[in-house]
């Protein structure tokens, strides 16, 4: 089975890192995995996204065609990506920031106010990791413990100091979904 997830947000929201964590975990759990950061124009700013493909066999195409999951941190991401989602797919939305809603009827909506959650706990910067926690808490694409257990490696030496906060954020997200669902 090949499962594709696209995560998207405004540059600086850290969503690329969330995607990367999931990719590392998938690798550690023995899956085939590809991670592809979006390939914008050469200019800066605006929306950045990444595609994580997880599969039990070699992955043909790492591109974001018909993703099964969308994780959207802002309005522009929603506008751009909603049409691409596979029919029957799930769309995770950061309701703290995303005011619009998908117009498609054939996809499932998961609403999580991650920025609010972050603001009221460990700080807005970690909204992306709360989203990650919430996302895997619901989809079980990878185990949270795999991410948490390998956070050292994922972060590398330079960013080691963010380890605890990241883990905390994931847990907040996990908790949120376990409550909600």
């Amino acid at each position, binding site marked *: 089975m090949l499962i594709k997830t696209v995560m998207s947000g405004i540059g600086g929201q850290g969503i690329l890192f969330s995607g990367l964590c999931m990719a590392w975990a998938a690798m550690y759990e023995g899956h085939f995995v590809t991670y592809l950061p979006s390939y914008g*124009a050469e200019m*800066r*700013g605006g929306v950045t996204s990444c595609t994580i493909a997880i599969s039990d066999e070699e992955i043909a195409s790492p591109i974001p065609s018909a993703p099964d999951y969308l994780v959207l941190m802002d309005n522009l991401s929603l506008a751009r990506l909603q049409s691409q989602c596979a029919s029957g797919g799930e769309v995770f939305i950061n309701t703290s920031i995303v005011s619009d809603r998908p117009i498609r009827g054939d996809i499932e909506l998961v609403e999580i106010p991650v920025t609010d959650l972050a603001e009221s706990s460990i700080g807005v910067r970690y909204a992306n990791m709360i989203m990650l926690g919430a996302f895997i808490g619901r989809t079980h694409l990878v185990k949270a413990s795999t991410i948490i257990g390998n956070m050292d490696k994922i972060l590398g030496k330079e960013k080691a100091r963010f380890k605890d906060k990241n883990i905390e954020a994931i847990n907040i997200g996990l908790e949120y979904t376990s409550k909600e669902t």
Partner: protein
Amino acid sequence: MKKVFTKPKCLKDIPFHYCPGCGHSIIHRLVAEVIDELKISDCVIGIPPAGCAVLAYNYFDIDMCEAPHGRGCAVATGFKRAQPDKIIFTYQGDGDMAAIGTAETLHAANRGERITAVFVNNAVYGMTGGQMAPTTMIEQKTTTSPFGRRSEVEGYPLLITDLIATLKGPAYVARHSLATPAKILATKKSIKKAFEVQIKGLGFSLVEVLSPCPTNWKLSAVDAYKFLESKMEKEFPIGVLKDVTKRK
């Protein structure tokens, strides 16, 4: 009330794609205002660079022709020699003009090509993600000078404008900065002068503009403008370096 400031006519009604606080859009506006004021929008041809301003042709409502990275002055030479009655300008970043385009720039200047170069110095390669430019300052960190530029390894910032000012071909050479509203207005005056010098057929003209790249400097826009004044203007002193109209 009277409208005292609005968009120049030769800019199209299209929002800029530049990062917040980027100097490119200001310089676009200045050039556009000059074109409007000189009433040359129907005989001007612009050569945007490969660089963040590569899409400049989307904004200006004038004839524009892309050039390969660094070759703006050579393309402009081709235009001017083929159509001596047209007003030709290039718009180039520091990488474009002072690295890969060094030879084309210097030789066009030396030949005294009757073209105008608007040279946007933001001390980094913006478009490609903030690599070291020839104008990157000592100790400035970029993605390809992660430990800061070291004079012993990468050499000192190259002041190509100063080199150009020593040549005989150029008629007008100046360096300006966007650091304050007053300096922005001075920049515009200088760009106008540069175009006028071309219209009079006096020779090559160039205006270097110190311009912020908040994104790659990793500063807020406001801080980036402060950095312009506190750091860049120290390394790249502003002023008119050559003006043949003054000598007569």
